């Protein structure tokens, strides 16, 4: 399950940000690469919501500042890694 979820998460980042999968590490942070700007952040949120069938609270969207943080937030929605 956690492996599946990790693959889904990486897939969402790759598709939404148009980056290589190898780039998607826990340390990757919002606004540190040109591909992850505020416009792409909305695309990423939409992708994560669709792939995990959830709808994030606004505070969590604001708080999603890195891949690691995304995993932590998704855990609150019963998406475990």
């Amino acid at each position, binding site marked *: 399950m956690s492996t599946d979820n990790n693959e889904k998460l990486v897939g969402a980042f790759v598709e939404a940000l148009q980056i290589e999968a190898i780039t998607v590490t826990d340390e990757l942070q919002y606004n540190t690469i040109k591909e992850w700007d505020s*416009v792409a952040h*909305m*695309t990423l*949120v*939409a*992708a994560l*919501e*669709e792939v995990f*069938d959830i*709808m994030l609270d*606004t505070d969590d969207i604001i708080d999603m500042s890195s891949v690691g943080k995304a995993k932590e937030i998704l855990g609150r929605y019963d998406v475990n890694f």
Partner: protein
Amino acid sequence: MTLISDRFQLTDQVALVTGASRGIGAGIARLYAEAGAHVWLSSRNIADVEALAEELPNARAITLDVSDAASVKAAIMTIRKEAGRLDVLVNNAGVMRPAMLAMSSEADLDMMLDTNLKGAFLCAQLAGRLMVGKKHGVILNMASIMGRIGAPGHSAYCATKAGMIGLTHALAKELAPHNIRVNALAPGFIETDLTSDISGDAREHALAEIGLGRFGTIEDVANAALFLASPAAAYVTGQVLGIDGAMQI
């Protein structure tokens, strides 16, 4: 080659119309269904939209209090689960409590702000997330001529409708990179429950201000709402379309 009629079709598009129990909202829902859309009709009380939903092809009724973020989230999640996407959002739900400034209550001000403006914001916020995922969508905000030229005794209502115009402009710019178009409709005097009690001298005075010499119909507004949602308006975004018979030029 695309037929002219095809440019105004909404075949298999999924649309949500808020405040669809009567008047303009019901009229838009009817025309969208006729144009081939799968329409979700919403109201705070689902019983108010169930009969119309049963009457229309491919229509569903859903409970939605636009002023309540939890209610909006629940409705949008239901639509995503059942329909898989949302192509068109019509922010039509609205309330009007006329009162001169000195006699306007804080409760009425809050009600109009919460329903007319905050409600549209919340619905656009969550519906927009579904649209961003599909890189496609249309949001229509129901403004009013009163939000453009004002009207005595309607300061709070006019403020909410002017706010809708500002919201439309901002969202059009913000959502354009995601291929989501955002426009507003600004009806003038339209024959609805809200205007049915205008009679006698007041009606004559109102008619004198309308170039075409008649009140608009629900169909007049619905036709404009269909155009803005359709492929025919593919390059139209950030606009406020007046439907007022030359009341404001």
